[in-house]
């Protein structure tokens, strides 16, 4: 069944979009991430203008992270104080990101920026995750206990001023890195159309030493607010949020996430991280391929306002 997207101004197959939402939702539920880094490229691949894809996916990520946040809230597995502090940076970052998005679109360099950012970010994060999880798997195969890097060793981050006590996370840390991380996630989320969960979770664990039991819940709250905020900003400045597209993705995404979460519980965490790392790296390489190989079509037409 074909449906006309009023903002993208083209007709797409409802079931194709829904199944894409389901599949990405499954993966997002399995790994506890938003899945924007998969959704946005998929939409661009089926012909949705990149700008519309980025702007509309923000709504979908807000929906799936809200479901996640509620679940973690019921289990008390999130830190509201930490989430609030991350949000301060997140909101500023999102505003800056949407502004940069508009500027890049005006000078015709949005696609390339999205491409290069995906390559650099996903390539780096993917490789790091694979390396780290492979080591963990090897260690557990050899029968050694999994190394828990908490307490003891101090990073330079822990010497910064303006310290604040986060009761739920049982930590005493400077607000500067917390705001900084919030800013980075909000910024790249708005520019690239990703929630940033796959970045935020490792940052919270390795940089701030947030206990793993509250990490995903807290990350979901940040993603929820920055993405809901980004949706409003994208709608207000660029007029590119396609509510029909976003709704189909939301329904598919939240449904798929439920099944993904059940599947995820059956897999060991380091194997899960290895899988996610491979996935992230694969998407990054796909972008590298598109940037390096001579494209079939060297030309593209962009209108002053919409994208055709």
């Amino acid at each position, binding site marked *: 069944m*074909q*449906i*006309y997207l*009023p*903002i993208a*101004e*083209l*007709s797409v197959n409802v079931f194709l979009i829904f199944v894409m939402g389901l599949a990405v939702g499954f993966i997002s539920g399995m790994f506890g991430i938003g899945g924007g880094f998969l959704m946005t490229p998929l939409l661009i691949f089926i012909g949705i203008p990149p700008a519309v894809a980025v702007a509309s996916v923000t*709504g*979908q990520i*807000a*929906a*799936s*992270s*809200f*479901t996640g946040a*509620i*679940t973690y809230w019921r289990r008390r597995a999130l830190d509201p104080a930490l989430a609030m502090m991350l949000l301060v940076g997140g909101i500023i970052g999102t505003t800056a990101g949407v502004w940069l998005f508009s500027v890049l679109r005006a000078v*015709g*360099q949005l*696609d*390339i920026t999205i491409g*290069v950012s995906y390559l650099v970010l996903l390539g780096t994060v993917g490789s790091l995750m694979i390396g780290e999880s492979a080591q963990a798997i090897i260690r557990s195969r050899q029968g050694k206990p999994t190394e828990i890097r908490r307490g003891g060793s101090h990073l330079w981050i822990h010497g910064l001023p303006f310290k604040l006590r986060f009761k739920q996370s049982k930590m005493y840390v400077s607000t500067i890195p917390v705001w900084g991380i919030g800013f980075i996630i909000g910024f790249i989320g708005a520019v690239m159309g990703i929630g940033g969960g796959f970045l935020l979770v490792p940052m919270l664990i390795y940089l701030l030493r947030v206990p793993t039991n509250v990490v995903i819940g807290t990350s979901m709250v940040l993603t*929820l607010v920055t*993405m*809901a*905020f980004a*949706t*409003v*900003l*994208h*709608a*207000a*400045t660029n*007029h*590119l*949020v396609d*509510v*029909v597209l*976003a*709704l189909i993705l*939301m*329904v598919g995404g*939240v*449904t798929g*996430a*439920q099944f993904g979460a059940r599947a995820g519980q059956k897999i060991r965490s380091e194997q899960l991280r290895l899988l996610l790392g491979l996935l992230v790296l694969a998407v990054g390489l796909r972008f590298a391929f598109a*940037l*390096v190989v*001579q*494209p079939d*079509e*060297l*030309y*593209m*037409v*962009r*209108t*002053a306002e919409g994208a*055709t």
Partner: protein
Amino acid sequence: MIRRLLPLVAMLAVLGASGAPARAERLVTSLSTYRVSIASNFTGADLVLFGTVDPERGSPPRRGGYDIVVTVIGPRQTVTTWRKERIVGIWVNAESRTFVDAPTYLAVLANRPVEAIANPELRRRLQIGIDSTLLPQDISGDVADVVRDDPFRKAFVRLRNEHGLYLERSNAVTFLTPTLFRTAIPLPSDVPVGTYEVDVKLFADGAMLAREHSAFEIYKAGFEQLVANGARNHGILYGLCTSGLALMVGWLASVVFRRD
């Protein structure tokens, strides 16, 4: 088809009875619809154009027969065409040309190739065929048309053609009788909204005999219109609604799939 033709026939009868001294051929055309609405099930449309040639009274029919060229021009928009170039190993949008007020849709429909209908001079003057249509570029402040084989112009026309937005068909106009003709105007699903000008030209023996202008409108209807207007005119409210919708879907999912 017969029913659509009836008002046309009546119109012709009136025209014939008005008794104006017909010095040359007249051209009368009618479109199957003058308003095309885009609703959620829109996947493109074909508009049918009927026309008839009212020959000069008392004169013998033309030996070479008539030629018809139908030009449909959609709303105009200034667009930029970018060309990628390899810069430090990656393909980047490097050079661009801005086409000022280029038609978003351009269809040239004829009963035989336009090259056979009119000579190059006439084609250029009347802008018959995509190659003869002016597509002025903004070249550092100066607006001027460029040569036909300018790579940016060719790429622009080709990309529009791939989207079904620019097309030239030499067999699209069919003569049902020596004076009655029909053609279909194909509109793809991503056709822009706005006013479309239809320009029908009648030729015989390489000369233009008559010309008829009409127009039709493509508009978003109902929900699609609401959404498009909302997004354009009330961006913040639209964004808040979308975010609200996201929260609602998220909350519903947590209720529906609740396991504890």
